[in-house]
């Protein structure tokens, strides 16, 4: 349950690399990496649900897009809105949505959980898709970047791509650390226990529904944070941000990268993003490449790229649903039954 030394070392190098990257990068890769880091935060937040709590949410993009829309709504057309004001509003909105959706969803499990989260995300998608006041299917602009400062004194300028890059990098590191701390704290222990064996966790005296709900809200809020950053850096938000394709994409980042690790999803976002960047220029059949890649990873690297990294370092990953079942004939399967229902 704790970070192992080689991974920490690797992560420090990666952060250092990202910190000096703008110095060498052209404008495109600067903004592209900003986007990938945002996706990394987004994927990490979903991993809190999929990889740590065992909740497979297929509607995570709802919070991502919702926060962006909220920023667009609170930003007046011709003046900037303070970050101190807009960020709490956007995060609060995402958290509230996650609370409502989560309250309904955590009662179900397995396939039903997947589908009900999808249903709620679709509802929000259609709400924005058909709301002409908010730009309908075309989406809506955020005309001015949030203002970071007091009075007339601006601390950082979010209109500058390099500044945004560092702002997002700092956010990524902060989210990573926050989740790391949370996962080591009692709360984190409980949600990991829920993923391993929810029934037993409840029998030990934990109100698992509440822990799942809180995890859902935290993940939704963090997804909202990612959506806020994306909206800030691109200045546009559209129903496509909430579309199930986006939920599917971030799920792909989590699983390809390696769920149950915090760096895995970030890795997934970067690898898939860079692969797209390169392949897109060679062939128009990017989807074919992507499809084959996805199937390959699912079949041959079930623990994702992080699993591969783990194997290289010669240690099994911390959490594993597939193989570490209790030995012996009485070994109790904690995994979902084939029909998707866990023991009630």
């Amino acid at each position: 349950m704790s970070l192992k030394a080689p991974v920490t070392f690797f992560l420090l190098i990666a952060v250092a690399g990202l910190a000096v990257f703008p110095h060498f990068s052209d404008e495109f890769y600067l903004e592209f990496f900003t986007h990938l880091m945002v996706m990394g935060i987004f994927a990490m937040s979903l991993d809190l649900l999929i990889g740590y709590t065992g909740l497979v949410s297929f509607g995570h993009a709802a919070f991502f897009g919702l926060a962006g829309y909220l920023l667009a709504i609170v930003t007046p057309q011709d003046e900037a809105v303070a970050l101190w004001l807009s960020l709490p509003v956007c995060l609060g909105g995402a958290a509230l949505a996650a609370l409502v959706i989560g309250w309904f969803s955590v009662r179900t499990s397995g396939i039903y959980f997947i589908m009900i989260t999808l249903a709620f995300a679709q509802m929000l998608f259609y709400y924005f898709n058909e709301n002409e006041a908010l730009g309908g299917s075309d989406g809506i602009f955020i005309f001015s970047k949030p203002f970071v400062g007091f009075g007339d004194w601006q601390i950082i300028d979010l209109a500058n791509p390099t500044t945004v890059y560092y702002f997002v990098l700092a956010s990524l590191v902060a989210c990573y650390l926050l989740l790391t701390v949370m996962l080591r704290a009692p709360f984190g222990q409980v949600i990991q226990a829920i993923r391993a064996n929810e029934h037993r966790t409840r029998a030990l005296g934990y109100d698992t529904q509440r822990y799942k709900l809180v995890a859902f809200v935290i993940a939704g809020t963090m997804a909202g944070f990612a959506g806020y950053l994306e909206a800030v850096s691109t200045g546009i938000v559209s129903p496509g941000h909430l579309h199930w394709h986006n939920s599917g994409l971030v799920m792909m980042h989590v699983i390809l990268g390696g769920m149950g690790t915090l760096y895995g999803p970030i890795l997934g976002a970067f690898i898939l993003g860079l692969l797209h960047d390169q392949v897109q220029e060679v062939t128009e059949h990017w989807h074919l490449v992507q499809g084959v890649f996805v199937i390959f990873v699912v079949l041959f690297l079930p623990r994702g790229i992080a699993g591969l990294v783990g194997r290289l370092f010669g240690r099994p990953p911390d959490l594993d649903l597939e193989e570490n079942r209790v030995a012996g004939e009485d070994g109790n399967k904690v995994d979902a039954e084939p029909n998707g229902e866990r023991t009630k």
Partner: protein
Amino acid sequence: MTKKSESSRRHFIAGVAATAGLAAAGSFVPTRFAIGVAAPVKVGILLPYSGTYAMLGNSITNALKMRIDQAGGKLGGRAVEYVALDSEMSVPKAPTNTNKLIKKEKVDFLVGPVHSGIAAAMAKIVGPRNAPIMIVPNAGHNGITGSLCAPNIFRTSFSNWQPAFPGGKVMADDGHKTCVTIAWKYGAGIQMMAAGKENFEKHGGKVVKDIQVPFPKVEFQAFLSEIASIKPDAVFSFFSGGGAVKFVKDYAAAGLKDSIPLYGPGFLTEGVSKAQGAAAEGIKTTLHYAANLDSDANRKFRADYEKAYGASANVFSVQGFDTGSLLLQAMAAVGGDTGATKDLISVMEGATIVDSPRGAWKMSKAHNPIQDIYLRQVKSGENLVLGVAAKNLEDPATGCSMA
């Protein structure tokens, strides 16, 4: 689709390597393209090549390349390199794709898109930079040459208002007093229906019901029953692609076609009338193009296109073709100097595309074509011209500071 530029790949890899600390910082030479007049002109294209609207993307790209090839494959004496990306009709991906074309590929011109949300995202990036010049070969959102208009954004296609507005008068002229409008509930649908309604009511008609179908739903049966129970004189409608095929077929199958004639902007039958078959026969639409326009330019264009790509040309390919013409004109005027953005813009602003298959048109102050809108009718699967529904129609360009 694209030829990868070696230098920019190297650039990227060098960036990563340096970042990973594997390469000494000093060994890295920042790349700045030394664009001499001999270097090829880069045309970036962002259009859908997958999904429902891939046909549009292909038609536009094919005709654009055909036009430039016909002129010797050069723009202002320089060879042309195309960098085409699949927009995937995804607005969230639009900023990255646009940035890639502008900042990584450093294209000299940006052509795209089909989706107006993507157009807005592109305009948002391109507008404030004043470079490169962006040419919209389809997306009809009024705002692109309206409230979002910018000196370096041009459109060679239409504004949603244009093909729809004359349709209102056509219905009134045919003696219809009441009408139901039905379209997808999204930007293009709403703007086109509003334009049609405006003109229909100006000519004494009355829109009795405005049905908005959730986008991109294609199950129309409930709405058809609603229309049948309202019994208007006419129905004014906009759908495109698969939705257009299905709507027109369902409309006929519900028995409404003979009792309540169907009108609409030409996209209702453009490029899809073959798939619609008999159901489309007789439908009157208004558009800035028709297959049988009687001009040498059109006949040659259609023959060339058919020969090159084995498919019939449509309005989308015309828009791509004219995009090519605009580029040729502008680049010829500046002698291939893509750095002369101001001059390029002023040439394009004053441009008249004389040899367009759709007939001559000229650029408006808001950078949208001032063009004839034709009245067409489907006969044996072809959109045949009946006459001109509106001569030299100019978009009102509401909210554009340049107009």
